[in-house]
């Protein structure tokens, strides 16, 4: 038996800073309409924004999916991009390969991946160099 869930899906385009964060904002709005607790919504918004921005900053294109169930929200972000050669290194706070023009906008603290692990209940990252990166996060609603 398949679970009742609401699925939202948004395409992401690398280097498109104009609409950066819009997918996460839309996911946040739906969670608010459903009546999920505000502190949980905030954690989902932070995790989803960091994953969304990583596609825009580091990859070519991708898709962000939110699956909202009564007891949890799952965020999956899949991209086509350069991938990550050393995931352990990338996960380290302060590690960033963001170029200068990106840093000038305030990105590149090397905090995105650590934030994702911190704010989610489950975090998984898979990456293949030259192919892309997949991130999955689960947020329990209570």
């Amino acid at each position, binding site marked *: 038996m398949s679970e009742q869930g609401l699925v939202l899906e948004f395409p992401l385009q690398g280097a498109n800073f104009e609409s950066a*964060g819009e997918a996460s904002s839309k996911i946040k709005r739906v969670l608010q309409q459903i009546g999920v607790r505000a502190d949980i919504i*905030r954690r989902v*918004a932070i995790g989803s924004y*960091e994953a969304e921005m990583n596609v825009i900053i580091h990859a070519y294109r991708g898709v962000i999916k939110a699956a909202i169930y009564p007891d949890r929200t799952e965020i999956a972000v899949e991209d086509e991009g350069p991938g990550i050669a050393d995931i352990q290194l990338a996960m380290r706070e302060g590690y960033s390969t963001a170029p200068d023009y990106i840093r000038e*906008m*305030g990105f590149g603290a090397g*905090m*995105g991946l650590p934030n994702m692990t911190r704010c989610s209940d489950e975090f998984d990252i898979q990456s293949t160099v030259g192919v892309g990166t997949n991130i999955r996060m689960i947020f329990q609603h209570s």
Partner: protein
Amino acid sequence: MTVADIIKALPLTVIAAAGELSKPVEGGYVSDLLSNVMGFAKANSVWITMQGHQNVVAVASLANLSAVIIAGGASPEADAVKKAEAEGVVLLATDLPAFEVAGQLYGLGVRGL
């Protein structure tokens, strides 16, 4: 304390979302690094920064911050103002440097911990 109380006490110009000044202020945070704010600023904080582009608005909105103070005479970009207006994110600007803004807020009782 609310955003309106802060505006009364400090020389801040309201740039966007003038209708949202009743938002509560429960803390403060200073950083120009967006992920640092995402990770460490608490909900309902005022955020002091010199960044004036629209990604600041996205961060403030997603992290439930009560206002963004763009300090040091930096000017917010036009699309940031537009986005802040649309999303109800209070944007404030001041010529005071960030250190001075933080100090004056601290004097009002706003804390960073």
